[in-house]
């Protein structure tokens, strides 16, 4: 596998840089079931990388491997040029990987602001004692991080619901708050697990715009799983296609669209 690649500039003027995350020959088993079979792919700095495939193809498992929920039995995960040892999810978070969930996983008992503030946890360093005293270091750190959070709240247009408990919000807004929480961590790599599931057309358009804006303004690398083919083909730079735990296609949206194996997986093949 190549370690360095030439940066290039996309048609819309974004620069795609070096390899940020490199998955090498990943195999993940649950007992006798092979959820992921010997898959390799890379994610490059600044790109929007989509993982698609029919239900049960192993897409979410792949995301869980990246975010540290599962440790693969075989294969290596390379992040920012270094091989990553088996890690707990909170250690992965500290490396600069944030994610959202397919089924929203917000903290229902807390306000929107507090939810997004939890996203800053990896950047907040004051200890228990300084927190207990509060005045001084802890208060200062709180204010500094609040400023970052307010920029993100502004960016995602959720100012009006800042103090609302998350439990009271409708579905579409919850998805947006979850994105805000992940963004608050200022991640190097942002993983989105079906960011548009269950949304209507307008909400999908909004979400697509936010994803593109995040990528454009913050330069965040994004890997996403999505079922809406129109959205995937429109916003992603490169696409990995999975089926039954195998990788059956990898390339630009156009290449993938014309790949016979991909077409077979999605439309089925005649058995004669």
């Amino acid at each position, binding site marked *: 596998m190549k370690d360095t690649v030439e940066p290039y500039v996309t048609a819309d003027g974004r620069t795609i840089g070096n390899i940020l995350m490199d998955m090498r020959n990943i195999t993940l088993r649950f007992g006798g079931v092979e959820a992921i079979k010997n898959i390799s792919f890379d994610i490059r700095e600044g790109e929007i990388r989509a993982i698609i495939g029919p239900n049960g193809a192993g897409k979410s498992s792949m995301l869980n491997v990246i*975010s540290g*929920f599962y440790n693969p039995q075989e294969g290596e995960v390379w992040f920012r040029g270094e091989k990553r040892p088996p890690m*707990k*999810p*909170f250690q992965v*978070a*500290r490396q600069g990987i*944030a*994610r959202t*969930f397919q089924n929203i*996983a*917000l*903290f*229902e*008992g*807390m306000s929107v602001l*507090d939810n997004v*503030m*939890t*996203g800053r*946890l*990896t950047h*907040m360093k*004051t200890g*228990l004692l300084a*927190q*207990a*005293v*509060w005045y001084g270091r*802890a*208060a200062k*750190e*709180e*204010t500094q991080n*609040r*400023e970052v959070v*307010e920029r993100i709240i502004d960016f995602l247009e959720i100012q009006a619901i800042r103090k609302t408990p998350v439990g009271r919000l409708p579905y579409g807004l919850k998805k947006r708050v979850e994105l805000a*929480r*992940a963004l608050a*961590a200022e991640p190097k790599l942002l993983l989105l697990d079906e960011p548009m599931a269950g949304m209507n057309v307008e909400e999908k358009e909004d979400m697509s715009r936010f994803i593109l804006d995040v990528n454009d303004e913050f330069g965040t690398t994004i890997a996403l799983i999505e079922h809406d083919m129109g959205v995937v083909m429109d916003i992603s730079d490169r696409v990995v296609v999975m089926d039954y735990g195998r990788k059956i296609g990898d390339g630009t949206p156009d290449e993938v669209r014309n790949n016979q194996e991909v077409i077979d997986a999605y439309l089925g093949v005649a058995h004669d």
Partner: protein
Amino acid sequence: MFYREAGDFKTSYEADSQTFPIAFDRWRYWAILAVAYLVIPFVINDYWASALLVPFLIYAIASIGLNILVGYCGQVSLGTGGFMAVGAYACYKLMTSFPDVSIVVHVLLAGGITAMVGTAFGLPSLRIKGFYLAVATLAAQFFLVWLFNKVAWFYNYSASGQINAPERFVFGVPVTGANTSAPAQYLVCLVFLTFCALLARNLTRGTVGRSWMAIRDMDIAAEIIGVNPLKAKLTAFAVSSFFIGIAGALFFSVYLGAVEVGEAFGIQKSFLVLFMVIIGGLGSIFGSFAGAAFLVILPVALKVVGVDLLGWPTDLVAHLQLVIVGGLIMFFLIKEPHGLAQLWRLAKEKLRLWPFPY
């Protein structure tokens, strides 16, 4: 009418995240503090101190402690009585071993020792949740009470198996022992309660509090955004036990003066404090105060109304109390899991607009 938010604009993030964002609340808070420190000590008598105020102050400290664990971090504990006993016995051993050191230092150290013990008993929480954790802490309760009965070193080999608080002074005024005056008892407990409440408030509004609540609401998502579950749960156990240990130390040294562990710190005490937290409101500092006040006042109020006014037999009133508390627990668990604190919050939301709701 009484409760105005209009015109109360925040111009900085500090102002926005202060404890009482509404000016009226702030004034009331200072008023209550002023009454508590400047008025009550001069009018208090022995009956009020020993029946209501001192137990309220001490139970409020214990409730804040338990609320941090159960209400903020979501880890159920039935070991409160046992941890209060640790605080009491630690305080006793320190008082008798180092008679020259101030009692205030001893109470704080007792809290520290309880924090260590609590952290050790919190270790199972990393593996087990919910009911199973409750049973594990129940084991702590029974083990600790057994330990303090069994090992004579803890009660300095006294014949009765009791521990008795020797007389100690703060600024030349006796605060433990037989000669303690009601105002002295009250003020010592009040100072500790103020200290604990401020500490709890500071911890719950910042990063630490948010990681506790994140673990409570959804532990998987908490881990994915960088909360170390081990650290969050163990700090919750430590901080919670610190407060409960202080409460236990005060309960023994300042309030009761002489303690037999099974009687004073049995399983009933664990449930009493848990009920205070549930009735008062899980995940709310104010709720800890409300719950403690409610369950301290209830038996006294029932006695005044039932025995003194209506002339009912004493045992009937005592049983009635059990029925009422049981009924209330069920009511709050089903109808209002956030307890009195939530009722208070709703009342405030209504009052913001009252009497012109449109």
